[in-house]
């Protein structure tokens, strides 16, 4: 086991090209999906927390249910829309980075929207009234509402990012685990472990942990400084 661990560290320290490519691919997909999912989830979280309308509870229950949706089910659903003979088959998305990002957005969207809704709903009730009385309206009002709940909002983003960076089902089913193209850390770990190639799997496992820790630390340092 020790020699496997040493070889894994060697792959990282010597900057093995494939390891770096796989790690950067994973990071690129996860960051893109988290940003896009946030862009979609933020307005919904704001709408749910600031207004009352018919069907609001239904949307919240639906979002909460989607949070626990297995990644392979999301992969399967998207697959059924983008495979060769499916409605969007002519777009040629299957087994491309685009397909993985679509699946990952669907995976992270309910988590981010639901947690942003919770974060903004738990605010001090006098905050929106204070903004109204100070004449702060429109986009500036929403920006301040988000900034005042920044710790909880960033936690929502981190939860979404965490779910994406660690998923296998979507990347495997929609990306096809194609070498030098759609192969991510998690799909490589699954593949290399099944082949008995523990060094590469372990090296990528270590990188995955380092990425998660670094992003958490950087974001929390950022929150403190805002």
């Amino acid at each position, binding site marked *: 086991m020790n020699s496997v661990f040493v070889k894994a560290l060697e792959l990282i320290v010597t900057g093995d090209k494939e390891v770096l490519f796989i790690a950067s691919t994973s990071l690129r997909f996860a960051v893109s999906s988290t940003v896009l999912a946030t862009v979609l989830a933020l307005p919904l979280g704001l709408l749910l927390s600031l207004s009352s309308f018919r069907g609001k509870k239904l949307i919240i229950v639906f979002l909460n249910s989607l949070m626990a949706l297995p990644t392979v089910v999301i992969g399967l659903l998207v697959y059924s829309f983008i495979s060769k003979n499916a409605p969007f088959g002519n777009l040629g998305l299957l087994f491309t980075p685009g397909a993985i990002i679509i699946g990952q957005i669907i995976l992270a969207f309910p988590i981010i929207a639901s947690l942003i809704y919770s974060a903004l709903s738990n605010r001090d009730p006098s905050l929106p*009234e204070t903004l*109204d009385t*100070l004449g*702060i309206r429109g986009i500036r009002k929403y920006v301040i509402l988000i900034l005042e709940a920044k710790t909880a909002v960033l936690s929502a983003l981190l939860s979404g990012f965490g779910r994406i960076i660690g998923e296998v089902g979507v990347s495997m089913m929609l990306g096809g685990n194609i070498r030098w193209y759609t192969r991510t850390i998690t799909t490589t770990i699954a593949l290399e472990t099944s082949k008995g190639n523990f060094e590469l799997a372990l090296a990528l496992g270590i990188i995955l942990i380092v990425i998660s820790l670094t992003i958490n630390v950087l974001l929390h340092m950022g929150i403190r400084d805002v």
Partner: protein
Amino acid sequence: MYNSVIFRNITFSYTGECVLDIDTLTIEEHRVTAITGPNGSGKTTLLKILSGLLLPDHGEIIFKGTILLNGKRRKILMENSTFVHQTPYIFSGSVKRNLTMGIKSEHTCKELLEIFDLEKYRNSRASGLSGGEKQKIALARAAGMERDILILDEPLAHIDSESKLIIENVLKEMAAKGKTLIIATHDHTFASRIADKIIHMDNGKIVRSVQ
């Protein structure tokens, strides 16, 4: 004396229960009106309707001689007044950031920091200050808005006597400058010291009005 705001047959209900029922109420311009009454008597609801934060279920609001129509009520009242909560919301960041949320001029901000004895806390984290300092920040923020009507919910609650003195003096100065002040308070001696008119409320109704 011009009548700033007149309420006629105003009612307001929370979850079906009527918590405010006012036949008629006149708030005079450039004067200090104190609203007293026990907890749950409807003081805060009345202040929130006056500031446009809440819309009444029924009734008429006349502002400077014009009946406010439903759609424009909130906007007109909000544009002409500012409301300070009993426990004011303090934004994250420095005291200066809290003031500049409502005030654009750097000069006004500096002036208010001095008037409210907050200069030494200028760059301090506002949320870490005492209740009295927070109340002063909220009042300074509201004063800097330069609206005609200043509405305060229990401005002296939970604060030390030194801060009370500063706040009371500032309110007297604002009244002397012709601002219309509407203040809800439990403190009858404070009300009689500062107000031109005292309205006593109970069970959502005005039970007494003393000039």
